[in-house]
């Protein structure tokens, strides 16, 4: 049996010592070669889970393994993470950022990055502070997707860009990831992302996985889109 790309066991995280945990005993296993949508209402712990996997947050309990290795320095080289906010030094130019990624990530493909920049019409010599919010997000996505990582973590990748750019970004995601790699996407814009998702997982409050499965299967068996199923599941959970 092949090693899963991600395995979380009994993962627990609370932001306050005596507060309600955002994640409580979460168990997740992600196989290789899938595009997975992690979907759920606000505050259910999607971003927290992604931050724990990427090493931004420290778990209170449980374990995280990426490609069989405990989360840490070595696994950071296997994970390509796109946060939901701008996180680069605005004084740097796009080409300086590319040089930075080349220096730190052995799997970074600068030719691929240059091509994507050209496709989106972004000047590599432009300083980040001179770019619009949407363009900054595109630059971030390009740098993240230009890596040949084992696990891509994309936190709200299309939230800040115009609808015209969304299609290109989604195509970038499908077109640039290695078939052996796994892409985990969190988003509220389910309808936009649905066409590229292979698998979905609905996360409820407390970080529990309420439902998960193949998108095609849901469409074929239940005759519903993931967007419709999401509305149904979370409507029920609000009323109950």
């Amino acid at each position, binding site marked *: 049996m092949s090693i899963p790309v991600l395995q979380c066991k009994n993962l627990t995280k609370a932001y306050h010592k005596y507060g309600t945990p955002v994640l409580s005993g979460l168990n997740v296993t992600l196989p290789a070669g899938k595009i997975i949508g992690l979907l759920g209402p606000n505050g259910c712990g999607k971003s927290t889970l992604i931050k724990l996997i990427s090493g931004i947050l420290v778990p209170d309990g449980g374990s995280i393994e990426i490609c069989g290795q405990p989360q840490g320095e070595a696994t*950071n080289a296997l994970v390509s993470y796109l946060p939901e906010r*701008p996180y680069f*030094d605005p004084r740097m130019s796009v080409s300086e950022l590319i040089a930075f990624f080349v*220096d*730190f990530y052995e799997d970074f493909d600068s030719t691929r990055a240059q091509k994507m920049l050209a496709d989106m019409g972004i000047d590599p010599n432009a300083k980040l502070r001179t770019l619009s919010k949407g363009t900054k997000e595109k630059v971030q996505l390009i740098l993240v997707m230009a890596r040949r990582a084992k696990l891509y973590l994309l936190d709200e990748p299309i939230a800040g860009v115009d609808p015209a750019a969304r299609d290109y970004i989604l195509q970038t995601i499908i077109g640039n990831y290695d078939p052996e790699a796994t892409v985990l996407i969190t988003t509220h814009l389910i309808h936009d992302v649905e066409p590229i998702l292979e698998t979905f997982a609905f996360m409820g409050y407390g970080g529990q996985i309420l439902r998960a499965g193949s998108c095609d299967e849901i469409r074929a068996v239940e005759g519903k889109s993931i967007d419709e199923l999401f509305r149904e599941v979370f409507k029920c959970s609000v009323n109950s």
Partner: protein
Amino acid sequence: MLRKLLKYDMRAIWRIWWLLGLSAMGLSVVGGLALRILNNSGEQAFPAILEVFAGLAVFACIMGFVAFFIGSELLVYYRFYKNLFTDEGYLTFTLPASRAKILASKTLNACLWLVLSVLTLGACLIIMLAISGSLADFPTFLKFFFDGADVFSLLYILLLAVEGIIILLAGSWVSVGLVHFCITIGAVLAKKYKLLAAIGIYYLLNMVLSFVLQAFMILGVFATAGAIEPLFSALSETEIMFFIPLLLALIAVIVTSVALLIHYLILGKLERRLNLA
């Protein structure tokens, strides 16, 4: 990895620091010319108003040097804060580098810039004194100092100098570590006003430390009153010559231990308590 981290840390500071350094050098030239005017004031070579301006210029230069030093330090500490505790932390902490290496790079970077700033200030002072003509007797002084010295004395001076440098470097590490520690605690405790919390903690810590140090000094003076002088008079000249390097070595060990302790306290917070929102 540490080398790469340090390269980017140093490059980021250099972007602004070179301007500060160049300004300080420029000021030293102005200060040197002003000092030259003041040095010749007795000979009535210059009008009185020019001498007043020269005095003001020297004062402004000294203030400029202070501003250069504080500015250099602020640059380094601000990068530490911004890189680790703001949104830039999302990049820093997802790099394939352990938190220990990230902290080591930040500490080395801060110490290097501290030393570089001190050296630049030293160079500025030398330029200023050289232009003012106050260094004219310096070669004679050096000749007098080294002419009578034998090999043993030179080695002894070298040993003291090396120990002094070690203490200075370890001292820089402590001072950098203290600021980093306060910024880290501020960021861990406060969710919103992290910088403000860090400044508050720094002042509080400094107050407590200065109180403790003063208490130790006063207690030390009372406890050893009357004991130091007989101790030294009981020692021969040769024994005193051995005692001074030993004392310096002990100070170096203590300062380095304090620096290491602070370093591991920060690392502990970064590894176990740091949660970027």
